[in-house]
């Protein structure tokens, strides 16, 4: 750890830091929303910010890829006129956990793959990201260690670690540097603070272990063996096909594109909205044929899009271990349980081959 890349923010300066940041441009941070729920919302003082929180109901994708966004503005009729537009907002996000930072890294890869999505990329470039370390597990639903998302792995401008009396802050980008310089709230690190950070990370390595008994690098092989697993069939009867799991997933980005005319029936917009592969019509084509008719097949698709397919395209998992899908599912479908069942089934099969 190079000290020059670290600075310190004393807790007593935290409020000044937050209010100065909020004056520069819109600032959002996790705020409590009643029983065990949190949401990223605009803040202007430190008192509003939850420093210990379980993953917010909606992930940060709501800022990078809004639930609904205009792609095209037009005048319909005999002579058409259409302009492609992007909606954006300069924004600072404070308090992103490592799982959510990983989620944004996934989306960045998707939308910068050719053909690039300039709507996403334009918006992303206006967003400053400040991370916040989890010193311990948020709750029992998390599986961030399994997918290498429990420790900071880039994807932020500044990264805060709470050491009690102060935050040690990693400065990762020039934008981060500018915040440090312009808010004037930071001090130099003392050697003992970096020592404490190192100790915290060592302690974390003992607490954070793979939440499902499989080595991270072996997950793709597990999925290669599991396409016809019984576990998917078990989900057929349970899943309500509501799409809550994909809505709250930090890396689900499927969308629908729709047109909307105003009351004059002349001016209109084309917009995209979040969509879900769990909904019945998602893969239906004209003529009524549905390429993913059964819920079990749609659930399988969801899991493969997290643990298998992106490995080939992006060389990373698209599950960030945040646990949102499990927390939100009304049918108690549990990601860790599903993985455990796949493991058990595949081990049974391996055993049978030996017996």
């Amino acid at each position, binding site marked *: 750890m190079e000290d020059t890349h670290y600075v310190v923010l004393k807790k007593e300066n935290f409020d000044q830091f937050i209010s100065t940041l909020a004056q520069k441009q819109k600032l959002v941070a996790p705020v409590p929303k009643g029983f065990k729920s949190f949401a990223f919302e605009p803040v202007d003082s430190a008192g509003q910010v939850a420093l210990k929180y379980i993953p917010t109901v909606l992930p940060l994708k709501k800022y990078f890829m809004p639930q609904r966004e205009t792609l095209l503005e037009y005048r319909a009729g005999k002579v058409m006129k*259409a302009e*492609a537009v992007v909606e954006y907002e300069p924004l600072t996000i404070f308090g992103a956990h490592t799982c959510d930072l990983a989620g944004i890294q996934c989306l960045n890869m998707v939308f910068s793959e050719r053909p690039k999505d*300039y*709507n996403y990329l334009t918006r992303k470039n206006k967003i400053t990201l400040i991370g916040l370390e989890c010193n311990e597990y948020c709750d029992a639903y998390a599986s961030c260690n399994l997918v290498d998302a429990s420790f900071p792995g880039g994807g932020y401008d500044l990264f805060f670690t709470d050491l009690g009396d102060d935050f040690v802050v990693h400065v990762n980008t020039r934008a981060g540097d500018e915040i440090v310089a312009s808010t004037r709230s930071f001090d130099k690190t003392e050697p003992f603070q970096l020592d404490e950070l190192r100790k915290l990370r060592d302690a974390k390595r003992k607490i954070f272990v793979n939440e499902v008994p499989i080595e991270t690098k072996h997950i793709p092989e597990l999925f290669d063996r599991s396409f016809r697993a019984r576990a998917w069939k078990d989900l057929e009867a349970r899943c309500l096909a509501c799409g809550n799991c994909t809505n709250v997933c930090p890396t689900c980005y499927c*969308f629908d594109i729709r047109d909307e005319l105003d009351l004059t029936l002349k001016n209109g917009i*084309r917009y995209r909205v979040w969509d879900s592969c769990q909904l019945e019509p998602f893969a239906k084509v004209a003529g009524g*044929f549905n390429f*993913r008719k059964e819920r079990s097949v749609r659930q399988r698709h969801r899991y493969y*899009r997290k643990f298998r*397919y992106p490995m080939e395209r992006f060389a990373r998992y698209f599950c960030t271990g945040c646990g949102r899908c499990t927390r939100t599912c009304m049918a108690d479908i549990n990601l860790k349980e599903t993985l455990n069942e796949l493991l058990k089934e595949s081990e049974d099969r391996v055993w049978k081959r030996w017996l």
Partner: protein
Amino acid sequence: MEKMVIKDSGYKLEKAKILRTKQLTDKEKFFEIALGNGQPLDHEPGQFIMISLLGIGEVPISVASSPSGRDSFDVCVRAVGKVTNALHKLKAGDEIGIRGPYGKGFPTRELQGNDLLIIAGGLGLAPLRSLIHYVLDNRRDFGKVHILLGCKQPKELLFGDELEEWNQRADLYYACTVDRADPDWAGNVGLITTLIPGVDIEPARTFAAVVGPPVMYNFVIKELLSKGIPERQILLSFERNMKCGNGKCGRCQIQNLYCCQDGPVFHYEKIKNLSEAM
């Protein structure tokens, strides 16, 4: 929220004008279209475009003409829903929006020097017509060319005049069958698979290009394999629900592949183990 116009948006539309239309059957209509900027579409046979009707929506449609020697292009649209029905109401002179071309078409360079067995079921003739016209435009570059056509009933046959011409040409082997004949039909009756055993091909140097409804593929592939055509030389084009064409919206996914970018034309060898493919 602020808003600005972006030039390089993947959703930007090109203006295009309908030059000519022709009702082909009850459900299918032919359109000749030219881009407003006067440029050719510059597509590969087998690629598709997104056609926009502002205020109504956008649909993926195969280009049905050859890229060679023309500034305009053709499409053939079956009226099945909101956008396609609205398209059918348009006439020459009307304006539409276009994005594309998208996807991977037929690998024409790989096909050169080989014999071709082109198999079209129903509306599958639309994308295959772009390949057939391309092959006819460059006829010398290919070996023997067989065209097999199938559809439900004679009145559903698309491009009737052209079929007659193909039938007459000495440099094409052409056969057609219908599932159900009507009183005027003198040709073959039966599924398209019944035509395959009879074609005289040298399997090792034959590429098959197959487009049709989802149910057709498994049966046709079985026949082609039993004829001895290598898996690598069987090309299929798939239809999926598509919203973006840019490999993002997720609608068209076939396991780890995106039909809109990795396809719609695939080598059978590449997708034969994907259970979501067929």
